[in-house]
């Protein structure tokens, strides 16, 4: 589904990614880990077309990622970052924001679907009446996940999304992402998140190596 072939990302004086190659098939759940500044987020950014490689090619569904195929990739995937962007003052408005875009207007979810997703993520329905500015970090993250699920996305690019969640909400999110048809490409240092993943990539100084076993993180690094 996604293939990085010799991807190099370089700024004027800094090599961020150095000939990175990997393949990710549909339904796989992979995690990138490593010290900060090692290039993990740049991998995700390259994947969603927010960083353009200096060298190498990103492949998506057997085709090189180009200006023409990028909108299709963006339509397929959902990107959720550590401090999720809700983009609206009200929680309901934020949840339904993507459905105001022309591409999603016909997919407006029903109240029943909204309620179901909120229940799955242990979010009370009253949250929809709140302002996003008063939501906790964990509520914001779950609302961002709810939005992606309502968009019926199957391909998720996730940057430390469990960092602000309490154990119970974390388990609820993990359960939702366990579905076999979902492809997850994530950056995380959360030991519980690693139990969900099937492949582990260590990122160090812009280079990526595959590990057969999950890394062991001490609680303090979570």
């Amino acid at each position, binding site marked *: 589904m996604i293939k990085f072939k010799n991807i190099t990302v370089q700024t004027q004086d800094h090599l961020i990614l150095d000939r990175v190659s990997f393949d990710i098939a549909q339904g796989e759940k992979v995690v990138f880990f490593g010290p900060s500044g090692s290039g993990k987020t740049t991998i995700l950014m390259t994947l969603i077309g927010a960083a353009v490689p200096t060298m190498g090619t990103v492949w998506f569904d057997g085709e090189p990622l180009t200006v023409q195929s990028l909108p299709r990739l963006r339509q397929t995937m959902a990107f959720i970052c550590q401090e999720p962007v809700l983009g609206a003052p009200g929680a309901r408005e934020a949840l339904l924001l*993507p459905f105001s875009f022309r591409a999603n207007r016909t997919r407006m979810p029903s109240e029943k679907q909204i309620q179901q997703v909120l229940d799955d993520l242990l979010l009370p329905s009253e949250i929809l009446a709140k302002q996003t500015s008063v939501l906790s970090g964990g509520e914001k993250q779950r609302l961002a996940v709810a939005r992606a699920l309502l968009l019926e996305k199957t391909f998720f690019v996730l940057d430390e999304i469990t960092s602000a969640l309490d154990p119970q909400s974390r388990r609820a999110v993990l359960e939702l992402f366990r579905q076999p048809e979902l492809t997850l490409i994530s950056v995380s240092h959360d030991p519980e998140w690693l139990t969900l993943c099937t492949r582990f990539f260590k990122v160090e100084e812009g280079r990526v190596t595959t590990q057969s076993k999950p890394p062991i993180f001490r609680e303090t690094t979570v």
Partner: protein
Amino acid sequence: MQVMDISWWALAGMFCLLAVPIIILRWTGVPLLRQMLTATVRMTVQLVLVALYLEFIFRLNNIWVNSGWMLVMIVIANLNITRSAGLRLQRLFPFLLAGLAAGTLPVVGFFVCAAVQPEPFYDARYLIPISGMVLGNCLRANVIALERFYSAIRTNTKEYITYLSMGATLQEACRPYLRQALQASLAPTISTMATMGLVSLPGMMTGQILGGSSPMIAIKYQIAVMLAIFCATVITVFANIRFSQRAAFTPYGLLDPNIFSR
């Protein structure tokens, strides 16, 4: 009514008033003395030159000369907008020039031809000062708007990308920043309109009254000018942002960092 002229000697006397701010600035140690003196000299020289060429242009009153002069004003305003907004001239100049022209020319044209209706319609006495006032106000608003718009996208890259990843088109993803830019740039004009006559007597109106017009005529002109300024500001800000997007984003829909000059 006869206009009371100010003699050159009397004007020179006005410069003596500057002694007071000079003393205050020196005493407080504010390092603005040099800039203040330079600005005063520049203002005087520029305005004397303006008077000379306006007299020439008014006497000539030729459609091509007037149009040419308007074009010069638009180009200079555009150079100023691009530089002050911290954007690279080579990349954005033609797009911003088109935006500024698209917003100011129709509004000034409507004002002069439909509201004032001078004979001939290109009468420099109306066309040039009205264009100058509209452009001068658009300039300030466009600097704020362009600076806000592009720096907001630059500092909120993840937010912008999130919109794209939710299926937004480039225009849809830019809309929150366009909204912010319009709001920030229009706020000063709206508050000026709201307090006009109460807090300040506008320059044009005062000028006309000093020039011998009745206050009612002066007010009608002022209202028309404010409406023209507001409309031209909205149109130029909107057009400049929309037009400049063509050069400011990569084909991948990302903001090109090379558009910034600083």
